[in-house]
Each structure stands twice: as structure tokens, then as C-alpha cells.
């Protein structure tokens, strides 16, 4: 196999731009990275080791952007965690500490399920057709979350105080576990967490904020865990393309998170549900025909 032909630079740019926004939009980045190469007739497959290595760079870029965007929040949250460990308890009015531990509780199931199920689920659901079908299911899930959402009174002015008051420990665990759905191409990580958060009574804006905060350690840790592969022999022939894609992913991820934090102040998940249903249905028909 000629290494230079694994992924071209134009392909890397397209995949990087796509990854950056689709990781944060509730429309499944993994599903799109499976479907798009097939639609464009590219000889790239989701389970190819070099492609997985390539994706590590784009995921790391997305995680760094999220960390940068919420940098001040993370500093407050980490201080809150430190305070609660020092005091061996969470003060009732310490929203930063409560939010920090909610994120820890949500990250544990996501991390464990990701570590243990990722390889097998990726192997089973690798085809573009199954990704298109699951994209439709993602649309149904998003729409159902909007229909079944619990509309709780939003009293506190501070975002984190609202999330800390509304989200229960069990809810955070459930929302974290729901992220495992994203291991199946077609289901969205941010869609699962936002949908779960809506069911727990958060507003769309707070659900998006909680989803992005929850995504940062999971995406970052998964990318860091696989980073050695990018610098090892599996990265031969894709390292330059991965760097270009990472820069593109960082740019679109930054735009996406800025857009979505404003979008969800007044809007719902419904437009994304409609997109997933239509795009999933169209791709399914196309792939089966």
C-alpha cells in the first residue's frame, strides 16, 4: 500500500472541518465520518487503523478548543473540587464544587463504557448503511427528548448554580452513561447528553453547557490515550494530514461552540432532529439502492 495515498490533504481538510462542528452539533461526528467518505466515493473506512489514528488528532483539537472556550469555568470547577476535597463535603451554596462532582460522576460511566465497549461496537456497526439508520434513530432520540423534557422553574441567574440545583447525582450518572450511545456511528454524544439533561429538567442552554463540559474530559482522555499511535508507525503517512485536519477541526469546533451556546439560548434540538431524520433516511435509501 502506498502510504501517501491513504488520505489526501484535500480529504483531510474536509474531514477536519466536518469533525470540528459535527462533534459538537448533536448530529454524530462518527456517523458523518463513516457516511461522508462513502457518499464522496473515497476509499476510507472507519476501521482502518490509519483512519482511527488520523481521527485522534481531530478529537484532541476539539477537546483543546472546548477546554479553551470554558477555561475560566474549568478553573472555577477545579477550585471547587479542591475545596470540597479539603472540607470533605460539598457546601450547599458551592455550585462549582457540585458541578465539578456532577461532571466526575457523569464521566465515570462514559469512560468505563468507552474503554470497554468502543472496540467491539466500532467493529459491529462499521457500515455506512448502519450509520445512516442510526442517524435516523438519533433524530428520533433528539425529538423524543424535546417532547418528554421536564420543564422545571429556572430560578438562579447563574448558569452553574442552575445546573447544580437541577441535576441529581443519579441523573449525572445516567447522562454520562448515555454518552456510550455515541460509540455507535450515527448516535451523537452531545445529542445524548443534551437529551438526557433536558429530561432532568435543564433548559436547552444549560443542557448544552453541561454537555460540552462533560464532553471535554472524555474526548480529551480518549484522544490522549491514542496519541502515541499517531507518533508511532500507525501514524506514518497520515501525520501531516492529521495536523492539517486538526487545525481545521479546531477552527470549526470554536465556531460551533460559540454558535451553539447562543443558539440554545432561544432554540431547541428539533432542527437537528429533523436534519438527522432527513439525512439519515436519504442516505439509507441511497446506500440500499
Amino acid at each position: 500500500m502506498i502510504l501517501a495515498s491513504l488520505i489526501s490533504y484535500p480529504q483531510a481538510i474536509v474531514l477536519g472541518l466536518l469533525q470540528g462542528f459535527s462533534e459538537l452539533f448533536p448530529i454524530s461526528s462518527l456517523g458523518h465520518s463513516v457516511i461522508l467518505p462513502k457518499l464522496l466515493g473515497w476509499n476510507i473506512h472507519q476501521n482502518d487503523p490509519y483512519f482511527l489514528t488520523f481521527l485522534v488528532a481531530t478529537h484532541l483539537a476539539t477537546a483543546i478548543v472546548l477546554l479553551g472556550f470554558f477555561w475560566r469555568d474549568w478553573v472555577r470547577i477545579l477550585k471547587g473540587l479542591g475545596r470540597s476535597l479539603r472540607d470533605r463535603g460539598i457546601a450547599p451554596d458551592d455550585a462549582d464544587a457540585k458541578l465539578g462532582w456532577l461532571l466526575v460522576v457523569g464521566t465515570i460511566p462514559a469512560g468505563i463504557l468507552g474503554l470497554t465497549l468502543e472496540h467491539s461496537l466500532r467493529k459491529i456497526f462499521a457500515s455506512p448503511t448502519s450509520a445512516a439508520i442510526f442517524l435516523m434513530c438519533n433524530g428520533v432520540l433528539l425529538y423524543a427528548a424535546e417532547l418528554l423534557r421536564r420543564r422545571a422553574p429556572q430560578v438562579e441567574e447563574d448558569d452553574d448554580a442552575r445546573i447544580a440545583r437541577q441535576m441529581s447525582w443519579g441523573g449525572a450518572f445516567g447522562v454520562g452513561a448515555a454518552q456510550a450511545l455515541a460509540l455507535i456511528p450515527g448516535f451523537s454524544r452531545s445529542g445524548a447528553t443534551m437529551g438526557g439533561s433536558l429530561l432532568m429538567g435543564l433548559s436547552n442552554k444549560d443542557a448544552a453547557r453541561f454537555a460540552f463540559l462533560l464532553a471535554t474530559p472524555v474526548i480529551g482522555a480518549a484522544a490522549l490515550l491514542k496519541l502515541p499511535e499517531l507518533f508511532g508507525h500507525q501514524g506514518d503517512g497520515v501525520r501531516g494530514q492529521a495536523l492539517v485536519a486538526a487545525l481545521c477541526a479546531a477552527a470549526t469546533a470554536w465556531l460551533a461552540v460559540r454558535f451553539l451556546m447562543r443558539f440554545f439560548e432561544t432554540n431547541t434540538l428539533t432542527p437537528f432532529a429533523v436534519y438527522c431524520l432527513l439525512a439519515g433516511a436519504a442516505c439509507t435509501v441511497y446506500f440500499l439502492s
Partner: protein
Amino acid sequence: MRNDRLLALVAVLAGLVLIVIAIVYWAEPAKSLPGFFPGHQAGSAHHHVKHGIAAFLVGLACLVFAWFRTGPSRTTTRA
């Protein structure tokens, strides 16, 4: 109160056991793992690093839980 202490003790024990399990996963190849460990595979030299990380994280969570559980009861708000 006794139940609280018992729960904390169980959490500490579970945490320590899980951290030991994590070290075993990191140190031993799949063929050398005890037969009842998930991931045991005769003849395989593969190290289950991810299994180890998962066990370590859960172990750490158990220890943190015990740390909070044995802390002073909280009735005041933060200054």
C-alpha cells in the same frame, strides 16, 4: 452512623482491591491474568491497559466516596 462507617469501610476496601486489579492489568499480559479476570486469553501477550484504567478510575471513585462519607457533617454554608 454505624452504617455510614461500614459503607465507608467497604468503599475503601473495594477501592484498594480495584487499584490492585488495575496494577495487575498493567503489569501482566493477557495470558498471565487470573482465569476469572475479563480479558484473560491463553497465549496472548497483549496488555489490557484500558481494563486497567477502568479499574483504577472506579477504585479512585470508591476512595473519594469513602473520603466524603467519613467527613464532618455539614450544616453551614460557604463563606
